[in-house]
């Protein structure tokens, strides 16, 4: 082992209490950093997972932020179908029931909110991307063209929220829907929906026969599913040929999400700087204290022929060691804590990839170096005579 490194380690071990304190400080800093970053990654993954499966285009009335308040007409379907590049169009009528099972749905938080989507079963079934519901049916079946009236396919989450099973009825407003199918996509976006025949929603909302909230359409060329630029071009072409509509692409939705994520990331970055600075200050304090105690020792080392650079290196080794050991401690405690939290409380699925741990180690070393720079500089600049004369 390198002699300087060994001496640095010895010096830390001699001042056990103080070293332990700054190690704890470092550990806390690293735990915070890892926690914040893995939270961000988790959030990102969650959103990506939710968004990733929306592949088609969504047509809404121009200026409508949400299909719920969008008003379109059934006769648009044939016009949309005629546009080159459009393979299939499926009309939907959306409804947001406020009272579910005789309770105001918003009252119990976002989990109890259900979006009722009226679909034309035949058309929706022929959408390639409808697979997300069809493939994830866990019990019962998806809607069939012959289904009429208040029959519904809903997500497992909704069923669980309202303690319903297949065959039970769910009360939306004054209307009772019979559950004929339960799906589970595990996506926060899709798992909020309940499907029923389109006529049923029109009747509930007392809408005219031709009313449509939104059209879901798919491109002819399946390659467009994976090429957001081409999909955007198609969307623009549709908007250009039909006035008064907006065509949403999954890219747009993702853009909105990533805009929010960017804000969150900026915020996290700023917060992450705080533990970094805190850790560096803890090490700075420790190293300054030990520097002041060791003035004479440094004088002796210089008298023995140590150069300023040797002294600088020794002090930096010590502070870097503090940083790295604190980082390891933090990672250890952090991983255990994350496991425990995940196990007992949250179901956030915090994501802690290897690169994050490596980055955390790198950051810890940087914090150590940063915190040691000033004390190392002071120590190396010490005048040997004054150092030796100090007692």
């Amino acid at each position, binding site marked *: 082992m*390198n*002699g*300087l490194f060994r*001496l640095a380690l*010895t*010096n830390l*071990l*001699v001042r056990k209490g103080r070293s332990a304190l700054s190690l704890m400080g470092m550990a806390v800093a690293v735990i915070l950093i890892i926690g914040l970053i893995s939270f961000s990654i988790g959030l990102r993954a969650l959103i990506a997972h939710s968004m990733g499966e929306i592949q088609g285009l969504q047509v809404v009335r121009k200026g409508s932020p949400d299909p719920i308040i969008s008003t379109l007409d059934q006769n648009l379907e044939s016009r949309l179908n005629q546009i080159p590049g459009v393979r299939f169009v499926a009309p939907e009528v959306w409804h947001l029931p406020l009272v579910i099972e005789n309770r105001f749905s918003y009252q119990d938080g976002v989990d109890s909110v259900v979006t009722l989507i009226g679909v034309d079963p035949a058309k929706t079934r022929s959408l390639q991307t409808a697979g997300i519901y069809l493939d994830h049916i866990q019990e019962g079946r998806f809607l069939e063209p012959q289904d009429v009236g208040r029959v519904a396919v809903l997500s497992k989450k909704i069923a669980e929220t309202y303690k319903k099973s297949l065959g039970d009825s769910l009360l939306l407003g004054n209307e009772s829907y019979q559950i004929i199918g339960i799906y589970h996509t595990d996506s926060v976006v899709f798992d909020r929906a309940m499907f029923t025949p389109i006529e049923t929603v029109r009747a509930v909302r007392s809408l005219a026969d031709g009313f449509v909230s939104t059209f879901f359409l798919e491109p002819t060329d399946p390659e467009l599913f994976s090429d957001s630029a081409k999909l955007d071009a198609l969307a623009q072409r549709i908007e250009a040929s039909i006035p008064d509509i907006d065509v949403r692409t999954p890219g747009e939705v993702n853009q909105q999400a990533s805009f929010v994520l960017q804000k969150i990331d900026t915020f996290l970055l700023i917060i992450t700087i705080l533990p970094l600075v805190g850790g560096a200050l803890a090490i700075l304090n420790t190293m300054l204290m030990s520097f002041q105690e060791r003035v*004479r*020792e440094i004088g*002796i*080392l*210089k*008298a*023995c*022929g*140590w*150069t*300023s*650079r*040797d002294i600088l*290196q020794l002090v930096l080794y010590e502070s870097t060691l503090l940083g790295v050991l604190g980082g390891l401690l933090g990672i250890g405690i952090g991983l255990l804590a994350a496991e425990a939290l995940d196990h007992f409380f949250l179901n956030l699925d915090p994501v802690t990839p290897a690169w994050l741990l490596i980055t955390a180690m790198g950051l810890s070393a940087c914090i150590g170096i940063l915190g040691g720079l000033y004390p190392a500089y002071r120590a190396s600049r010490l005048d*040997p*005579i004054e150092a*030796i004369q100090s*007692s």
Partner: protein
Amino acid sequence: MISFHEVHKNYSIFDRDVHALRGVTTDIARGDLTFILGVSGSGKSTLLHLAGALDRPTAGRVEFDGRDLTTLDPIERAHLRRKRIGFVFQSGNLLPQLTALDNVLIARIPSGISSSDRQRARDLLKRVGLEDRIHHRPRQLSGGEAQRVAFARAFLGQPEVVLADEPTGELDTESGQQLMTMLGELRAEEGTTVVIVTHDLSLPGPGHRILSLSDGKILSDERIGENGPTPSPKIATARPLSSEEFQT
């Protein structure tokens, strides 16, 4: 070996200048044992620090083996100290966290300790009578033992000169005598030039030189032969006495 030419050293504390050395000119010959005497504040330590390239004169020249120390940069001076000079101070020579052996090897830590270094360190500790204290830490050693470790360290790199600043200053008379005897033996075996600052005139044995300082100047310079004192004042200074010096 080490020569001083009209060396002045001023320290300024606040706005006051302290003249620690006021024109010292002398030569320390290779192989010599030189004692530096003088009252407190006469400039003994200052002289030693300048001789060991630990400090630079305010005016004048200090030459080490013909090289002007004032022309060396800090790194060169550090290298000179590491390779050719050994220091021993009055107390607190040792790093408390290291064993006697590691303390002896301190100068070698940055460049790496070889097994021959280690062997030499053990050897030296044995020669100063501390073979059973090799792995003791300073607080487990007596004052005299700690000073012996410090001498072992000073001799580790086979330096040309060992400079000791009141090495017996904090020891009782008996330990002091033992330390000086041990130093005498080491010096003889290694053939090292040794300069010792001391208050204690009872220590010097035969065959040495006594340089006494007063108020930053050389007051007297005597060579003591094997057969008792042979006053040879100012011979080594190789320069006529100034009228000022004549008066003091």
